[in-house]
């Protein structure tokens, strides 16, 4: 049975990815990394009884990562796929940005990916198989105003991905990154109707993406068939250039 860990497991995108794996791969178990908020993740786990479980994971803590990977490999025997999806943003113009906003966003979006990749690499090397898919953002390459912290963190995730891909290429481990644009999740919750209309006007497809449209790409990159794809950055944004 394939074992898959998805961080940010209570959010719309994390759950979208989880449901995509669970509905398409009968022979997989999904671990949803969660912190305090877990209602939606618990709902998902109850729908896929026995194939989906919650695991406590503060992604900025190396100790929490060690404990989580230990638990997963003890119970599932292996870890095939890591989806580093957890993250947050705290937008301010740089001149007004509190230092804690900078550090918090770098920590939750970039440090977390470092800790996660480090925690799973040895296990995946032993297996001589692993798939790491990092969720960055279109902001990494086309940052909007107010996201110096988030854009820098996500650009860091892209660079980390490309470097780690080289380091693990001979070990059967692929490392790729997806860059979603506007996706209908709670992350867009603070946009009012005018902002949504304006954003859609800048998207060639004239609509926001759905979580399952990102999930489909993640699912493919996690498959055995994607074995020669590593270090790739995949924009999923309705055609924004």
């Amino acid at each position, binding site marked *: 049975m394939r074992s898959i860990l998805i961080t940010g497991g209570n959010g719309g995108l994390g759950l979208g990815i989880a449901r995509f794996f669970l509905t398409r791969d009968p022979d997989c178990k999904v671990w949803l990394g969660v912190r305090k908020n877990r209602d939606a993740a618990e709902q998902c786990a109850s729908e896929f009884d026995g194939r989906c479980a919650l695991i406590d994971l503060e992604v900025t803590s190396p100790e929490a990562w060690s404990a989580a990977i230990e638990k997963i490999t003890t119970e599932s025997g292996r870890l095939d796929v890591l989806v580093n999806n957890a993250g947050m943003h705290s937008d301010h113009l740089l001149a007004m940005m509190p230092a804690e906003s900078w550090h918090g966003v770098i920590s939750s979006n970039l440090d977390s990916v470092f800790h996660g990749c480090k925690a799973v690499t*040895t296990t995946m*090397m*032993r297996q001589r198989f692993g798939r790491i898919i990092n969720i960055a953002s279109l902001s990494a390459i086309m940052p909007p105003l107010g996201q110096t912290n988030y854009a820098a963190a996500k650009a860091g995730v892209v660079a980390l991905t490309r470097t780690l891909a*080289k*380091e693990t*290429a*001979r*070990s059967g481990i692929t490392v790729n990154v997806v860059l979603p644009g506007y996706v209908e999740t709670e992350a867009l919750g603070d946009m009012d109707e005018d902002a949504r209309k304006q954003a859609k006007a800048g998207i060639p497809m004239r609509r926001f993406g759905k979580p399952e449209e990102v999930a489909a790409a993640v699912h493919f990159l996690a498959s055995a068939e994607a074995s020669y794809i590593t270090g790739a950055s995949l924009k999923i944004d309705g055609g924004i250039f």
Partner: protein
Amino acid sequence: MQGAELRKKIKEVIVDELMLEIEPSEIGDKAPIFGGDGLGLDSVDALQLVVALEKHFGLKIGNSTAAKGILESVETIASEIEKAA
């Protein structure tokens, strides 16, 4: 496992895990594994070898300083495994 049998097995692990296109018997017991006169391996291979030695022989190598000494040759690897046994 020890002696010649151990050294033969270590060479097989090196060739297999690092996907080298040579025969295990081509590796001398005391020949350097890394460096200019070695097998043309790099730091990524060293990490892979550390993981492989733990997987196949239970040999835990704690840090890169220790790894440098232990991974010098098949002989040094074998001595470390025999010491730990």
